[in-house]
């Protein structure tokens, strides 16, 4: 870390759910990983749909400098409107009741996500890793008109992964817009396919819907699916949501560093 945070607090802001008990799990896991490193005086998790709510969480924070990191996949409605409004933020750095609240970028947009995606792709195939020169990697998002930022982020990551040359191909695919994930077999000719969902938690979309769209199961809850699944003489591996990857804890810390760097630049410019 570029700054000492032993007197500071970290607040991870996630979506949460009133329907799915496991939605908040990745946010808690990353929070715990950071707690265990003893970098911050306190670590808190807060949610839109679970308690503590964004609106309330700062009341239970004692530190005078507070970093808020949205555990969201892209900028959009939640990071630009809901979180700032509910926390009462006035900008990237806010003064609230004499405390300094530093609002960081969301997890999904940090450049180090490229490494996280590659790690997830490598870990899902494990020891049976296919020849990368005969493998296509798909990064899958939801894709709606609601938030085109997440679509943009996926294309950026696809570009960056393509530049590494790690796999024969890297492509974007979506649940509800072209190119459709359900057409994966037409989108690539490679004999091996790895699919990584660009979602924060294994919610309904990444856990239940995408495997059905991929055609690797009829119903995940009843039948599960195999990794790899053989389809038309080709092998397909499906990973869990990118947000469940333990490396995200490092991404969160990198976002804190980035906010500190930005602040430093701003203050040196003002000087």
């Amino acid at each position, binding site marked *: 870390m570029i700054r000492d945070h032993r007197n500071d607090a970290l607040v991870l802001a996630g*979506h949460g*759910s*009133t*329907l*799915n*008990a496991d*939605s908040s799990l990745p946010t*808690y896991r990353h929070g*715990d990983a950071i707690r265990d490193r003893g970098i911050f005086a306190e670590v*808190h998790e807060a949610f*839109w*749909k*679970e*308690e*503590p*709510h964004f*609106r*309330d*969480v700062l*009341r*239970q924070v*004692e530190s005078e400098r507070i970093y808020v990191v949205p555990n969201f996949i892209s900028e959009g*409605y939640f990071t630009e*409107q*809901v979180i700032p*409004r509910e926390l009462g933020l006035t900008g990237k750095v806010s003064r609230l*009741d004499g405390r300094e609240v530093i609002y960081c970028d969301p997890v999904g947009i940090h450049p180090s996500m490229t490494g996280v995606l590659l790690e997830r792709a490598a870990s899902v195939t494990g020891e049976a890793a296919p020849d990368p020169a005969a493998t296509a990697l798909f990064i899958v998002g939801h894709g709606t008109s609601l938030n085109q930022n997440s679509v943009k982020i996926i294309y950026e990551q696809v570009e960056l992964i393509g530049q590494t040359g790690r796999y024969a191909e890297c492509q974007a695919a979506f649940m509800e817009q072209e190119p459709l994930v359900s057409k994966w077999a037409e989108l690539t000719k490679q004999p091996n396919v790895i699919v990584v969902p660009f979602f924060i938690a294994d919610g309904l979309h990444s856990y239940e819907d995408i495997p059905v769209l991929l055609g690797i199961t009829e119903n995940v809850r009843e039948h599960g699916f195999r990794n790899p699944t053989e389809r038309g003489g080709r092998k397909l591996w499906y990973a869990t949501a990118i947000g469940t990857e333990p490396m995200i804890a490092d991404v969160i810390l990198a976002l804190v560093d980035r906010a500190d760097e930005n602040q430093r630049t701003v203050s040196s410019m003002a000087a």
Partner: protein
Amino acid sequence: MKINEPFLQWLREAGGAAVLGQLRISGKPGEWIIRHCDDGDEVVPDPHWRVAREWVKVAADGTYRPLKGEGNLAPGRALGPLDDRELLEALNVIYPTTVANGVLFRSGALRITPFAETAGRQTGMYRIVGTITPEQLDEVVAGVCERRCLKQRLWEPRAKVPELEGTAWPLLCPEACNLMVAACRAKIKGQPLTATED
């Protein structure tokens, strides 16, 4: 703002026999034990505070508990021995912001948000909540807050005046939660109060 120490002081003064919602806290500094009020001392406490996240997740009948103040915390679990910090972490999981709300209320610093302000702030799918009628609000308060939640509501209608004496720590609600706001949306749309969407 000091939140934790005033609470710990209260707890020490309660002589290790405090009640907080469905929990009772016994023991002494460094050796706090959290138990369910319906359990005796035979339940073996788990020393890891993070287990509290599993505890609060599902009710005894296996259903998910999105409302932490709901009076359906399952008996049969206990946590401890916990040090001060672990105790506070566990309480922040089981009853989020309850320690802070109580401390702030006692010092007169807890801000209470009228429902109209909460409703007026909503955007997106919850913007419609700003159009709620007093009758509809009344029904949601009765059907969600008063029927399901143990918290004492500090906002109208039918705001409560909490008791601060004794060895029970208050569970306070200074502002409508998202679950209640979502129920208002359902009410306005003529759906059942439990019709939740994420």
